[in-house]
């Protein structure tokens, strides 16, 4: 009986969290007239809403922009983050502790304080409506540096010493010897960075005005609130589904990594 109650609560929870997404996908395939209903199926399923989205906004282009921005950010955060993390964990140089403190300070800094001046910097550099404007401010993150440092502290000293004896440079040691051992932390940082970047919408709204340079969440946001899809629920849901689908697909394959990576953000607090 107790077990039954447990499964009942868990099952209700599953409905509460999953049904809205299923409804969104189903409704995006229904004609406008039928969208109010609870049903996840209709005899009149149609791709009309999607056709409309593709003809009204450059969503394919926005998808490519988002992929470019998120991928570049992720590679940059992993490469530079691991370099700084390695230096902080394994190299001795004057100013190392100061650097570490600076990284910690950056991590606790609320973004509200740098938002406006960062925008002004982008304007001054003439970078509005460019990929660089979208990528540069997130090209390195303090959090990833901390994660890499923490992980590299536990790499056995003997391994690094042995490599040095063989005449390996630190660049080689980091990328050829330590990286292959660091899969868990590389995956965590990649998943977190990619997701944050893919879902980011405030910064693109600020530095990009040109439609052809917009990221996918930005374009979808402006599409739904900008009047173009006003009161056309099907179009809004189709655009939202297109935005959600890549992440949901990735999630269904690499679910474990997503959950573990996101759970590790708890360290941040």
């Amino acid at each position: 009986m107790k077990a039954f109650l447990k499964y009942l609560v868990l099952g209700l929870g599953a409905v509460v969290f999953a049904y809205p997404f299923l409804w969104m996908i189903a409704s995006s395939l229904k004609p406008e007239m039928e969208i109010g209903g609870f049903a996840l199926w209709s005899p009149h399923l149609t791709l009309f809403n999607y056709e409309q989205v593709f003809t009204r906004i450059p969503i394919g282009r926005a998808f490519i922009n988002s992929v470019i921005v998120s991928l570049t950010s992720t590679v940059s955060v992993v490469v530079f983050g691991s370099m700084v993390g390695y230096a902080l964990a394994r190299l001795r140089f004057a100013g190392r502790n100061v650097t570490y403190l600076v990284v910690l300070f950056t991590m606790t800094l609320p973004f509200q304080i740098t938002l406006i001046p960062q925008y002004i910097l982008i304007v001054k550099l003439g970078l509005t409506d460019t990929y660089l404007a979208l990528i540069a401010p997130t090209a390195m993150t303090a959090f990833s540096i901390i994660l890499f440092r923490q992980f590299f502290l536990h790499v056995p000293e003997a391994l690094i010493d042995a490599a040095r004896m063989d005449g390996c440079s630190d660049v080689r040691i980091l990328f050829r010897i330590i990286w292959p051992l660091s899969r868990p932390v590389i995956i965590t940082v990649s998943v977190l960075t990619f997701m944050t970047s893919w879902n980011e919408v405030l910064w693109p709204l600020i530095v990009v005005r040109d439609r052809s340079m917009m990221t996918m969440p930005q374009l979808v946001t402006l599409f739904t609130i900008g009047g173009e899809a006003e009161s056309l629920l099907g179009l809004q849901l189709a655009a939202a589904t297109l935005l959600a689908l890549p992440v949901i697909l990735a999630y269904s394959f690499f679910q474990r990594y997503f959950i573990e990576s996101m759970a590790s953000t708890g360290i941040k607090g």
Partner: protein
Amino acid sequence: MEQVTSVGNRKSSRRVKRRTGYWFVLPYAVFFGAFVAYPLVFSFVLLFHRWNVVTPMEWIGLKNFERLLSDPLFFKAILNTLKFLVIHIPLQLVVALGFALILNSRIRVRGFFRAIYFLPVIVSGVVVTILWQQLYAYDSGLLNRLLTFLGPGKVPWLIDSALAMPSVAFMATWKNVGIYIVLFLVGLQNIPLELYESARLDGATGFRQFLRITLPLLNPTIVVVVVLSTIGGFSLFIEPYVLTGGGPMQSTLSAVLYIYNQAFYFGHMGYAATLGFVFALLILGVVVLQRRFIEAESTT
């Protein structure tokens, strides 16, 4: 002889190590200078200026702060954030802990449930907000249809200014609770089983065990949930931006939405920077206080 060369080698290798240290950190130093240090310094400059980016900056002393102290919308944004947090944090804690406790008992397909609860976490806030806008819709929204069917009738979720912010808080809880379920699960699994066994031998009931063992040992996780939720509350943007535009009657105007409006709708860069500065101080202050309070609570 051999000893000498080896010492010499070590010395030179140390010097190389030092230099590589600098090379490895250099990109970050440049990044930090451009995107953290410079903006910070510039934000201090902006505090004392009026500027719309186009015309030259104008020094106005402390006028931005004077204006802030007599700006009803600034206080409204703080009040709205507090309203959000008062609902969001307890709801988040109770729901997350509840599901985590059930999932931590002997449950089959635990991974399946965990994966489902986590789904809203990974999906963009834009998607979640567009979706909930339709769930909350007054006339044809699914929630109101369900409530009409069950009896209570329609609820003006986003139309009533007293209800709009709680509705946003509810949606945000739905979106984020998955992370905290997982965090609590990790916390629960780290509690040594022997503790419960010895408590049972002492005759402690299940509820007493929960109060005396589970809750105190979950304290670090509770701190994380409270702190991250607070930062989240002060960072609300896309939710009110898409859902309500800050309305009705500014009841969902959030800190970041207000900064955004001042800067990019009215072009008041100096004032927007001042708002950002004050909100940032406020966040840090609240988070420090919360930590002290919760940590003190657990030691008594």
